[in-house]
């Protein structure tokens, strides 16, 4: 089984957001970029399937500019076999992104596509199921565990109020949420080996985006709160304030 893992380069989660002068984009100056944390779960799941002998090859693909090569090299350093950079713009139109990734999937011919359930920048939570639908494949989202036999995959989905077990007939697209798949750290030999692994650069298909960001703004600041007091003796006053002043109880 060949696995394709879709990854995205995103601002580190501890980044404080600054808006560019144009008022519609994020100012990336001085920001550290990392692999999207949910994509790390997908990559780890893929590497474990390979180690268990169920997968023969793990390819990582990303849509982005040249800087995304660093993210792909990071994936190669922990054990992915090949990287593919679709050189293009990843914007707010998830369907445009899914169409570009569909071309990459068709070119690579995997049996299973894994991706994070969402990216922590755009928070769109849509590219995986769109890609699955465009391909006409089975798809499960928000999955924390996967296991399987020949030609099928069992996935556990985290949904409100519980966990749903579903069976997917391959080929399939699965998006991962947090579960046991904490991404391993690269070793020094891994980092050295990554430099020699194949990294293909292809021009992304041009798909006109149909989503426009009219404004990007910081949320209004919260007004400074107050310390009601110290220790348990402050509790009665806190409860009074919550009831009489905030109307929250």
């Amino acid at each position, binding site marked *: 089984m060949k696995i394709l893992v879709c990854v995205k380069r995103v601002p580190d989660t501890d980044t404080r957001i600054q808006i560019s002068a144009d008022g519609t984009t994020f100012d990336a100056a001085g920001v550290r970029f990392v692999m999207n944390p949910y994509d790390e779960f997908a990559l780890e799941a893929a590497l474990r399937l390979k180690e268990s002998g169920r997968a023969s090859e793990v390819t990582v693909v990303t849509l982005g500019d040249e800087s995304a090569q660093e993210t792909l090299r990071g994936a190669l350093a922990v054990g992915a076999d090949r990287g593919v950079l679709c050189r293009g713009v990843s914007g707010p139109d998830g369907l445009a992104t899914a169409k570009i990734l569909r071309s990459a999937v068709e070119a690579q011919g995997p049996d299973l596509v894994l991706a994070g359930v969402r990216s922590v920048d755009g928070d*769109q939570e849509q590219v995986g199921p769109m890609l699955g639908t465009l391909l006409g494949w089975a*798809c499960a989202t928000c999955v924390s565990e996967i296991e399987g036999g020949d030609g099928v995959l069992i996935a556990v*989905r985290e949904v409100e109020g519980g966990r749903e077990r579903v069976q997917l007939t391959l080929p399939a697209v699965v998006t991962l949420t947090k579960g046991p798949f904490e991404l391993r750290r690269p070793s020094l030999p891994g980092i050295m080996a990554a430099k020699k692994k194949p990294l293909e650069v292809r021009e992304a298909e041009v798909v006109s985006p149909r989503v*426009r960001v009219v404004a990007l703004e910081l949320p209004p600041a919260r007004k400074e709160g107050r310390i009601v007091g110290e220790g348990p003796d402050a509790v009665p006053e*806190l409860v009074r304030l919550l009831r009489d002043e905030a109307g929250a109880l």
Partner: protein
Amino acid sequence: MTRVLAVLEQRDGRLRGVSAEVVSAAAALARDLGGEAEGIVLGGPGIEETVHAAQAFGARRIRVGSHEALAHYRPEGYAEALAGMIREGGTAAAVLFSATATGKDLAPRVAALLDLPLAQDVTGISGLGGRVRMVRPVYAGKANATIEHDAAPVLATIRPGAISAVEGISHAEIEPLSLALDPERWPTRRLSFEPEGGDIPDVSEAAIVVSGGRGLRDPANWAMLEELRAALGSEAGLGASRAVVDAGWRSHSEQVGQTGKTVAPRLYFAIGISGAVQHLAGMRTARTIVAVNRDRDAPIFRVADYGIVGDAFEVVPRLAAEIRARKES
């Protein structure tokens, strides 16, 4: 006539509370655009009976598609049936879903089938001059993006709790529709469902959230938070910081923050949580925030409305007792 469609959600044959919110959002948008709202619901046979709960929220009619294979959510069947029902009757200005686990799985599939862009987790939607404008949080709520789609209908999922359900004067007609579907072709199959959390609402849906962080020192100490949660009543849920989820103390389903859930409850208790920027992103839209922390300089106090500097092990049991006493008096 401009139409705005609302996709209602049911679980186990019962309409979910968020469905009233999505119909209300559709009705408000339809008013902005000078049109009418319509509801759509899918389910197993007999699902019409449960739709009455949504009749008073401002839709002109509710179309009910039923098929025995749709009693539980089946992604391919739901997406295919909905895409058909949306295409029918001409172009609508917008189609709104709930941004629940099901809605966020379903809407992208429908969008791909109809070749339309989608906005997930929208917190504000309005129509002006025939255009639909939406606001959605990005970077887990560290910023808000205002967006427009250059295609019709505009597809969006509406974050639960973001738009209040408002009863209207209209009383929707119910129009049953039986669907022709071929479940044999669907490549996914639901095997089982294990409920989790009992009667406690999910952190993303709870009106009150009691969240714990590393300051609680040990997973066994969650019993104390559970006691406070129970004192607050059935609308309260439990949350957790990323640090304790990473440590394996609590499940990811409770995690609040950038790599967890974004919440907007009426009241949020941050107990032993220092307030990393990722956590603040996930809870800063709570209406009232209370922090209990030993460290007076913890960043959580800068966003909290009310704070107590002190040991959670002394403050929380007292808080639970006090709330219980006030409720009984």
